[in-house]
């Protein structure tokens, strides 16, 4: 199929021209990993499915707004995580997924050890030593690119708490890696 040769940006451009085949191809490429990443933040499978639908519908409706100066996967994830947050605002019975649960420190799996040894700097060791609360805040702000207000909604804690935890997390990481 010719669609396989197209870049994600080409697909979005075709979607702006109301090409449903391009949307299908974009969905084939990105729906699975976005779904998995959402499921790690939200334990409710129905909510994940709804957010996934909303994300691609928003991408279809807003394809003409993609400026083409960023990466499409990051753009899609930006839509998805914000859709997830706006869904949270409406529901009180939301259950956080495994990536955001505030657990007690646990053993790092063998797979993780293998993965972490590949990195020169001991980021993994530093991450392992900070608390799960600080890690969740770091993950949402640094990796998911959320602001502190959005992270606060997702974690269900006050914004001030997010800010102070973020400061502590940064300071800890700086010390660990120094």
């Amino acid at each position, binding site marked *: 199929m010719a669609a396989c040769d197209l870049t994600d940006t080409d697909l979005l451009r075709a979607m702006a021209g109301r090409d449903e085949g391009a949307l299908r191809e974009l969905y084939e490429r990105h729906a699975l*990993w976005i779904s998995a990443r959402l499921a*790690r933040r939200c334990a409710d499978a129905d909510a*994940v499915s709804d957010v996934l639908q909303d994300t691609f519908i928003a991408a279809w409706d807003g394809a003409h707004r993609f400026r083409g100066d960023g990466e499409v996967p990051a753009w899609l994830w930006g839509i998805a995580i914000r859709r997830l947050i706006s869904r949270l605002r409406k529901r009180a019975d939301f259950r956080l997924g495994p990536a955001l649960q505030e*657990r007690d420190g646990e053993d790092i799996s063998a797979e*993780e050890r*293998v993965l972490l040894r*590949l990195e020169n700097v001991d980021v993994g060791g530093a991450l392992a030593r900070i608390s799960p609360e600080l890690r969740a805040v770091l993950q949402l702000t640094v990796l998911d690119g959320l602001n502190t207000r959005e992270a606060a909604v997702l974690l269900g804690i006050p914004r001030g708490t997010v800010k102070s935890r973020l400061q502590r997390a940064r300071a800890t990481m700086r010390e660990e890696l120094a």
Partner: protein
Amino acid sequence: MSLSTPSAWHLDESTLRAYADGHPLSVAGPSVEAHLVECPDCRVRLGDVMSHEPVDRAWAAIRAHVETPRRSLAERLVGWFGVSAESARLLAAVPAFRGAWLLGVLTVSLFAGIAALFAGDSGLTLFLIVAPLAPVAGVAASFGGDADPAHELVTVTPYSATRLLLLRTGGVLATSTPVMVLVGLLMPGPAWLGVAWLTPAAAGVVLTLLLTPLLGSTPTAATLGAIWSLAVVSANRVSDPATVVEPAMQLVMAAVALTALAALALRQSSFEHLGRQS
């Protein structure tokens, strides 16, 4: 950074599996996610260890959204008044709701108004002929079949024809009446002339509804139009065109409208076949 070079570094399968299965991966999780955004190969490999079923199911809803046509302005407008989406679609398909019809009503009434301004009695004659016939023509066109783009839709819709009839007639009157009243009020002469045509219009509309199942919409509208035009023109010949809407005539028209309305209520069942045999 080694992580940002997709070709040099890939996630191993056990990590991908642990990630997809929702294992905590409190340390490796962020690395996996940072890499997945950058690496198409690992995205495909993650898909290989995941169940596709929920994602495939979600696609159906997305496709449904993409394929649903956007509702027109008229449909959304009547939606605000509490009309259901299905009724709104049938109502929006009324020819009187289309731009061309509104433009037609506006143009004709404007010409009649201008004529009345400059041509005195003959202009007034024209206005008095046109004003009541505009809603009559609109109603006739809405149930005509040949002029109705939603004719097939109406014919096959399992929907009370009486309710549909009233709904669509309401739509016609709501669009054409304000325009004509406005033009009428701008006319020279006494202000009551601007609204005096409403009684004959009401009589005409109810008669159209009553006779359309018997004669067909176009003959009905043509006959009523001819009779009314003849009446106004004769009144103009004899004395003043306004005599067709003077108080005595208003009473006659109101009586005709009420009688026709009563007959309409009695013959309600006949609408259930309206437009369906043509």
